[in-house]
């Protein structure tokens, strides 16, 4: 039996906070053999990143290893000082971080940064370092590497920055690469390219990789083995096929179920959730029903002449749910704000319920009768709640403004009704956003939007910032609300699977233009446009457990 390259045993890491010591890792154990790719999956707070940082010796000052050990290649580095670790970092093991643009020094050219990585461990002349940096950039398939050498991070795309980061990580040929959510925040197509590159490089060079991710599909696709973490422990560890095919641990089972796959339905995401597992059947609307929303040739040009939305047209019937899908920069969020009348369009028309609402300037729309009819749920629930409003005030605000309710029993009753309908426990109404969990915040955001009984609810990536298990619950909530209240949804998302489950029809957007439009299931099964097909192909996936 070979010595594991990285062995983590019973690791406990605690952070000193003002509420005393808080354990982030509570006895995590796993091992990684040379050349192996191990996936570390789990939801936020499970301790994935802390594990990586602890292994690198990069925990910040408040964090401390209180128990257990970390061995690298048989050598105990658990409490090694900077003198031992510094020569190892980059040379023996290196790390790739999420948010690649922030991880690079903004005022240093990428060439110099790659050269820094080289010269940290090798005695190279500036010229030689530069040449090697150039070679590295070429190896990570950066086009025109010679020119990019002098470029600064802000001049490169996110994917490009991550390639530079990879170049830095492999510069001194380490035996282990720790990739901490390396593609979070990147578009699916970019994600695929970066991951393919990373996987290829590690394979070619015989490097081991610890891939930390929240995306089960990603782990399934690129890892030899996957370890599932929950609350600071590794609860299950197995090859991906076994793990996702027949999860042993209850938590793994729940996690796998909540993960949207091509075959999952809203109900199947959370089997013990609030929706019965029966397929959703929708009665077709009688012919001749007037349209709820009609968008004609909508154009939004930002200063600088870039058209974020370029002649987009679509219609929605009452009670219908329409998905807007696209990668970043496709204009989907801009459309959501245009429809919600938060910003003014440069051209085109928005007709709501038979009335043109695009004539009313956004600044005056708060007083328009349609204001209460069109409501919106934002992407990041935490960021979309006024930090100085309690949950009650957040939900009550539209009731006060749009329904003219004064403080009193009527208002309290309406707020409480709303809270009940979104499943928010009433005692939480007095809490402030930072005292609520992500799922609770999402519920408050939804409650605020539905409190005034809108006809159209615009959902701008309402689950993008949530863990999958929470996402599952929120999606079920949304589906239930739609059935109960007969709301029309304009659902904006980058996640095709989610859109497929929730929406009747979908529109695929690219660079502000409509690429494809049609029935969700149909598009998913048989995309007409190449771009749509590419998008669908890029979604990392695993074979769901045979239920």
């Amino acid at each position: 039996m070979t010595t594991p390259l990285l062995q983590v045993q019973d690791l406990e890491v605690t952070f000193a906070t003002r509420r005393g010591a808080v354990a982030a890792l509570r006895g995590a154990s796993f091992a990684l053999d040379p050349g192996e790719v191990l996936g570390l999956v789990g939801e936020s707070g499970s301790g994935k990143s802390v594990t990586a940082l602890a292994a690198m010796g990069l925990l910040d000052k408040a964090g401390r290893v209180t128990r257990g050990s970390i061995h690298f290649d048989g050598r105990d580095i658990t409490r090694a000082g900077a003198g031992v670790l510094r020569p190892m970092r980059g040379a023996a093991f290196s790390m790739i971080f999420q948010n690649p643009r922030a991880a690079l020094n903004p005022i240093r050219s990428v060439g110099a940064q790659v050269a820094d990585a080289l010269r940290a461990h090798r005695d190279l002349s500036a010229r030689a370092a530069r040449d090697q940096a150039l070679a590295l950039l070429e190896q990570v398939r950066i086009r025109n590497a010679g020119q990019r050498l002098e470029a600064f991070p802000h001049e490169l795309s996110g994917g490009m920055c991550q390639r530079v980061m990879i170049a830095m990580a492999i510069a001194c040929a380490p035996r282990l690469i720790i990739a901490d959510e390396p593609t979070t925040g990147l578009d699916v197509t970019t994600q695929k390219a970066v991951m393919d590159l990373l996987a290829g490089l590690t394979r070619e060079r015989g490097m081991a990789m610890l891939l930390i991710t929240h995306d089960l599909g990603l782990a399934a696709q690129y890892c030899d083995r996957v370890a599932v973490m929950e609350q600071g422990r590794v609860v299950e560890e197995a090859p991906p096929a076994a793990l996702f095919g027949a999860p042993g641990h209850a938590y793994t089972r729940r996690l796998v179920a909540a993960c949207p796959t091509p075959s999952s339905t809203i109900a199947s995401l959370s089997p013990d959730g609030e929706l019965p597992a029966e397929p959703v059947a929708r009665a077709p609307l009688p012919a001749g029903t007037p349209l709820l929303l009609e968008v004609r040739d909508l154009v939004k040009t930002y200063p600088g002449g870039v058209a974020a939305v370029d002649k987009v047209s679509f219609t929605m019937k009452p009670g219908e749910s329409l998905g807007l899908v696209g990668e970043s920069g496709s204009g989907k969020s801009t459309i959501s704000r245009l429809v919600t009348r938060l910003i003014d369009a440069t051209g085109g028309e928005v007709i709501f319920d038979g009335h043109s609402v695009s004539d009313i300037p956004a600044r005056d729309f708060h007083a328009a009768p349609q204001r209460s009819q069109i409501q919106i749920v934002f992407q990041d629930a935490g960021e979309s709640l006024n930090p100085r409003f309690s949950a009650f005030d957040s939900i009550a605000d539209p009731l006060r403004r749009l329904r003219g309710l004064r403080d009193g029993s009527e208002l309290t009753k309406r707020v409480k009704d709303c809270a009940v309908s979104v499943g928010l426990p009433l005692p939480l109404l007095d809490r402030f956003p930072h005292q609520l969990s992500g799922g609770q915040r999402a519920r408050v955001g939804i409650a605020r939007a539905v409190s005034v009984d809108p006809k159209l609810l615009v959902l701008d990536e309402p689950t993008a910032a949530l863990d999958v298990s929470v996402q599952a619950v929120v999606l079920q909530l949304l589906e239930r609300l739609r059935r109960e209240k007969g709301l029309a949804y304009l659902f904006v998302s980058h996640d095709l699977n989610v859109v497929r489950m929730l929406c009747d029809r979908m529109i695929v957007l690219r660079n502000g233009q409509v690429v494809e439009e049609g029935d969700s299931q149909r598009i998913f099964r048989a995309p007409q446009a190449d771009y749509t097909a590419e998008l669908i192909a890029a979604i990392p996936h695993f074979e769901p457990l045979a239920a």
Partner: protein
Amino acid sequence: MRKLQAIGRRIGGRLLSSVPAILGVVILTFLLMRVLPGDPAVFFASGPSAGQQEIEDLRKQMGLDQPVPVQLVRYLQDIATGNLGRSMTTGQPVLTDMQQRLPASLELTFSALFLALACALPLGILAALRPGSAVDHVVRFLCTLGVCMPTFVSGLLLIYAFYYLLGWAPDPTGRIDIFASAPPEITGFLLFDFAVTGDLEGFRAAFSQLILPACTMALFVLAPLARMTRASMLAVLGSDFIRTARSIGLAPWRVILVYALRNALLPVLTIAGIVFSTMLGANVLVEKVFSWPGVASYALDALLASDYAPVQGFVLLMATIFVLVNLLVDILYGLADPRIAAE
């Protein structure tokens, strides 16, 4: 080349866009001076036997008999032709006075800023490396101590201690020892002029005259600079790319100096620019206390005498310097931070 062009365009644009601000300053000062209740003609005609006629004559001579809009137009015309008027207090053209006095103020302010930065940067970095430690608290306390003393008090105390009691400093009466010979006028910056002419003795003399007032001013700006250094260093040290730098095994000093400090200096540069402009205008009291023949004390005397021209000239000068310093900071910032230059 492209970069240089971009910078050139930015300079042009900035200068152009600052014209309205400067014009605003000029007009506002002009009106403010006209609101001053003192009548300069009365003040300056106050010889032991001046009568009403003399006051009237003086008023005419100063153009004060015209209505204010006419005066303003004339004043603007004068400025356009480079004529800032004549000071009644010194009897000289304002432009001449300023030319003589500006180097004194600039030299003092530069030295003070240099001194302050030389102290504030290490202190700020030290505090940022150990936030919350005793070092941090001591640094903060010392810097704050400097800012909480009015400059005229710290100036007088320094004089009392180092000149009167200890006799270490030369008499606080201007830029060089009154009995020493002045250097040839090259730039008006004495330290520079002495250095260029190789007069070390003179350099030492000028330096020893400069040190107390420069310290007084530096004390006052130490706190904001150190505070900003600490804050921006802390922010940078906590950012992702520092972690990256550490993860590739860079030496700690390299991480701090090349990665952290260079990034942290950017906001400090902005603050230093602001501090410089404010210091130049605000060292009125220091100049007074140290008999420093600078522009600020010149303006103060003129203001108290309702002598319009020097005050107007001074404010115009300060506004111009403010714009230029901001521009310089901008250019430096653009050079140091590629993100800005690209915009």
